[in-house]
């Protein structure tokens, strides 16, 4: 239950961090930000990186910023940063709602938004958020930077498009229309546990009919993803009981559920159906942007 030995470096700026990462990347060097997923895995000896590059002392990686109709969340923005709405409008309200579901209070003080994406647990709330909102992941190495769509960033459980010498410097989430409605629902057996299924939905309404529907599922498949079939089904509809029921049944039928001994496929489909229904009901029952 003690981590294996590693070398530790704590650079004071991004350039230096990328230089160190380039040197150690091919000896299993890893970035250490919040450490709330990596360190438990090291304690359990599921991970044993030979080198850690601690980025906590890099001022340029802190905080968030609104930039050209998007919210830029930098590498050191902690989950707790979103306890209160970090920006006005539906995005800030939704991020606050989602943040309540992430692990527990002390973990949210240290863990980071970008670290969740790099870790890529299928049950990560922020990975689902980035995918549902069509966010993009800004990554950098000593050789340059790339901006990757969240929809293709996740390649499997704990597997991303990051190269070993690259790190996430920020995530960019587009700001939704001010009148957008959203809903989020997560099922787990105990508060703070990993999600067994969750659904996030956002849309605008024109004369009671839904447009710009985004509906994402997480915790149920190998990676979070938007369900195009369900989005199409809801587009142009009123959010009636019947529409909610059809959408939740459609979602349950189109997914390829993860399976484990406690969570058989049928159970997970059932949880997805319920999660979609409750997320849509939450969107219906909330006021605009609430």
């Amino acid at each position, binding site marked *: 239950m003690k981590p294996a030995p*590693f070398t*530790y470096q704590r650079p004071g700026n991004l350039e230096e961090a990328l230089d160190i990462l380039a040197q150690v990347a091919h000896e299993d060097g890893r970035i250490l930000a919040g*450490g*709330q997923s990596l360190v438990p895995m090291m304690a359990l000896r599921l991970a044993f990186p030979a080198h*850690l590059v601690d980025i906590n002392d890099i001022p340029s990686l802190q905080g968030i910023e609104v930039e050209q109709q998007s919210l830029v969340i930098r590498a050191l923005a902690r989950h707790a940063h979103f306890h209160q709405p970090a920006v006005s409008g539906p995005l800030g309200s939704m991020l606050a709602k989602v943040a309540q579901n992430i692990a527990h209070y*002390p973990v949210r003080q*240290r863990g980071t938004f970008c670290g969740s994406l790099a870790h890529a647990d299928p049950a990560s709330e922020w990975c689902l958020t980035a995918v549902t909102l069509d966010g993009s992941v800004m990554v950098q190495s000593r050789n340059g930077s790339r901006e990757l769509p969240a929809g293709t960033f996740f390649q499997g459980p704990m597997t991303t498009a990051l190269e070993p010498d690259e790190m996430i410097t920020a995530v960019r989430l587009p700001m939704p229309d001010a009148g957008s409605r959203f809903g989020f629902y997560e099922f787990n057996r105990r508060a703070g546990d990993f999600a067994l299924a969750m659904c996030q939905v956002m849309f605008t309404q024109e004369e009671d009919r839904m447009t710009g529907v985004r509906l994402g599922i997480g915790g149920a498949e190998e990676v979070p993803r938007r369900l195009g079939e369900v989005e199409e089904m809801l587009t142009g509809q009123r959010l009636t009981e019947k529409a909610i029921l059809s959408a939740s049944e459609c979602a349950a039928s189109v997914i390829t559920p993860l399976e484990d001994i406690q969570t058989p496929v049928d159970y997970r489909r059932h949880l997805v159906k319920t999660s979609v229904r409750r997320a849509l009901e939450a969107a219906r029952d909330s006021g605009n942007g609430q």
Partner: protein
Amino acid sequence: MDSKIPVRLNVNSRDYHVNVEARQTLADVIREECGLTGTRVGCEHGVCGSCTIIVDGAPVRACLMFAVQAEGKEIRTIEGMADGAELHPVQRAFSENHALQCGFCTPGFIMLITAALEQDSAPADEEIREMLSANLCRCTGYQNIFNAVKQYVGELRERGGTDNNDRNN
């Protein structure tokens, strides 16, 4: 790789100069190098909350930080709570509400509650329950812990804010 790194830890306003391996957790170093054994180590992987301490004002799992990361930070542990023989109000509320049985989880809960209420001194009941869900009490005495927090929240309201934070006046 096994070489030791000199680190200055400021715990309860006192500096400790220790030599640690990078892989040593802050919880282990506080106990073994600083000799402050009030901080408990339970699961060692961030689940139980027994090792919760306050670092720069935030409640954190001391088993999920390496001691080398805490250089120069302001660390508070259970040993820094009482003022001589006078208990900290959270400790007193625990005593008066029978909020501890075996006592193993108590230091973690005290530090969690203290820091959380410094950040928000007027939480709703649901927020208190959500906050307490971070830590495990295997005697399962959660209701009395909740009662202790409610008493302390009431005392803070009467006093108009926390000891370190009066923004809710």
